């Protein structure tokens, strides 16, 4: 039997010598151009980073190509970012442009630094998950094709972080993104009463519902769902394969805005509902792409320098956001879950 519990490969063994030597000694950085950073050490050493896009779902052939470039330009030292970009770690400034040229030749753009739109954090979608309300990689590709210029430039007012999750489990943790694209189910699950008791524990199943919509049905040795309490989160499906949440006729995409992670200036924020419904329209989800693009460009046109989406909306107010964006404000936008009260306007202060 193989050894177990050996732990991950030691990162230290993978650091380029310049990073080892200047570990903890970096003094400042500059963005030389889109996708290219230089970090300067107290010792004067300079590390150049070239950030390149990746579709995240990549073949071993892609990886090997990347490895070839890393071997060629930076002794094989590279990393991936928390948003799935590739970073080449160069000691030689002279290697930057040749590397970029090689990358571009392979169709791999360089960018994603500073006031740009970087890679979209996303999830499995139809490629590998059993609960998605939409695909992941396909929408990401379609959106990034359209927003491409914002990846390769830094002309936005601030960073813009987009994320996508294909169901309410939110594996991309999209809930704190400038713009979040979220797959949603929209109909009450149907139940396979015949098989349910064979594969699922009824108490666990009833307990899994956030709104207590599931009641035991002892006669059928199954459960019933109180339709008017169900908000289609799909958690019952996660717990029990005899509850079917997927509904291609109604599954859809929703858009959320104004979230943020960093503590810089205003603290972290949840994204909030902007568009409750856009149709699932493969292969290019044109409605979703357009909605995201409009939001990006509305923000870009109106935000002051340095204002993230959340900060811009804070300043102008949500009512102005809906007015400017032309988005419809519906009953879905009004919270009715457990913390709803804290979102209600308990003041006469508002804008017209």
């Amino acid at each position, binding site marked *: 039997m193989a050894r177990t519990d050996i732990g991950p490969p030691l990162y230290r063994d993978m650091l380029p010598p310049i990073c080892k030597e200047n570990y903890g000694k970096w003094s400042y950085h500059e963005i030389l151009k889109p996708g290219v950073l230089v970090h300067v050490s107290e010792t004067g050493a300079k590390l150049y980073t070239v950030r390149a896009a990746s579709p995240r779902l990549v073949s*071993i*052939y892609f990886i090997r190509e990347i*490895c070839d470039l890393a071997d060629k330009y930076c002794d*094989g030292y*590279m990393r991936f970012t928390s948003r799935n970009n590739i970073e080449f770690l160069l000691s030689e400034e002279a290697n930057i442009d040749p590397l970029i040229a090689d990358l571009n030749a392979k169709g791999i753009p360089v960018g994603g630094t500073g006031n740009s739109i970087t890679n979209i954090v996303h999830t499995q979608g139809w490629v590998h998950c*059993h609960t998605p309300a939409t695909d992941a990689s396909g929408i990401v590709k379609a959106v990034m094709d359209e927003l491409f210029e914002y990846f390769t430039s830094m002309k936005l007012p601030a960073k813009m972080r987009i994320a996508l999750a294909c169901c309410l489990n939110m594996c991309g943790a999209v*809930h704190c993104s400038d713009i979040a694209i979220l797959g949603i189910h929209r109909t009450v699950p149907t139940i396979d009463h015949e098989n349910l008791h064979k594969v699922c524990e009824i108490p666990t199943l009833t307990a*899994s519902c956030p709104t207590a919509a599931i009641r035991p049905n002892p006669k059928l040795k199954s459960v019933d769902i109180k339709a008017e309490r169900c908000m289609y989160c799909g958690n019952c499906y996660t717990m029990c394969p005899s509850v079917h949440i997927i509904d*291609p006729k109604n599954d859809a995409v929703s858009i959320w805005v104004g979230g943020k992670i960093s503590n810089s200036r205003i603290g972290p924020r*949840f994204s909030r509902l902007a568009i409750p419904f856009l149709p699932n329209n493969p292969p290019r989800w044109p409605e979703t792409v357009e909605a995201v693009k409009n939001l990006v460009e509305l923000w870009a046109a109106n935000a002051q320098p340095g204002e993230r989406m959340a900060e811009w909306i804070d300043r102008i107010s949500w009512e102005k956001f809906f007015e400017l964006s032309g988005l419809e404000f519906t009953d879905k936008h009004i919270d009715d879950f457990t913390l709803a009260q804290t979102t209600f306007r308990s003041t006469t202060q508002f804008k017209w």
Partner: protein
Amino acid sequence: MTEAKKTPLLDDLEKGPWPSFVTEIKRAAANNLSAQDLLGQLELSYEDKKAHWKHGGLVGVMGYGGGVIGRYSDVHEQFPHVEHFHTVRLNQPSGWYYHTKALRQVCDVWEKYGSGLTNLHGSTGDVILLGTKTEHIQTIFDEVSAFEEHPFDLGGSGSNLRTPSSCAGPARCEFAMIDSTDICHDLTNEFQDYLHRPMWPYKCKIKVSGCPNDCVASIARSDISIQGTWRDDIKINQEAVRAYAAEGFDIQGLVVDKCPTKCMSFDGNELTIDNPNCTRCMHCINKMCKALRPGDDRGATILIGGKAPILQGAMMGWVIVPFMKLEPPYEELKEFLEKVWEWWDENGKTRERVGELILRLGMRNFLRAVELEPIPQMVLAPRANPFFFWWPEETVQD
């Protein structure tokens, strides 16, 4: 190789400037039947607007309780090579630093036993090997764990510690105030048993950011968020400040006015910070990294509770330990984590994350259990409702 099916919908996604995952699937499909069937099944999903995977499935590696996600096609008559299409999660190196040697080794194994498709990386941070058959799983593990250099272990899945992850950290970033990469690596090794054997009420995630910029999104995406910070004064290089001004950088508009506590001022010559009122948001340091640096009394703020929406709505971690010094071997941190997990393990219901448990039982019970004193830094504001409890010893008993 069987003749590949037509995939007009997916083909459309090979157009456009952004690198295409479809192209990647096709590259793998050229040499691999599973990848070919994945392409076919995905095209079907694009037609049907739904996934074609069955619910769950349990598969694994000897000695491990997680690390592999079982996946079975519901259209395997049409696509027999994805009848099984499990993913293997390999624990990434801390900070996602690689030498190409390490990556190439994995590719070679995956070429032999898998679809040739991967995610670099999964949202939790793992190397995701996307699609293999049940019979290959053990072999894959045996081979990757036996690499002479840079051997890999499995990542987490199920009700256990999930693969911790870290930002780029001090190896690459001047803002790192803790050794985020080392902490991540050290904790991962320390808690191997928790990572590999699902024995807890539910999953628990750790993410480590070197500073409050939180480049691994720890506050939103992990139960235990560790973020570097400092306690003393921001260091100002006034020369460098003046250099920014001389270059035409709008210090007043882009820095001073945006300070959340309005504790800065700039008279055109000197920048002044009223440090006791600074909340260490990083903004001024971010914008003027040549002139401003965090102080020297460094450590971490630890926040607990971050997670996705189900059941009670998404949560962001909240401050539990405002400041902890973090030097190897990180004993205080490890003891703290053990206390948190012990309490959660004892009291948590099935599928209840630690933050949800704290909400259910109240911070007072949690703080007693982990032996921490309540302090105002834990809250944005004290309670507004009058429904608070007294411990029996605090009242006069008959």
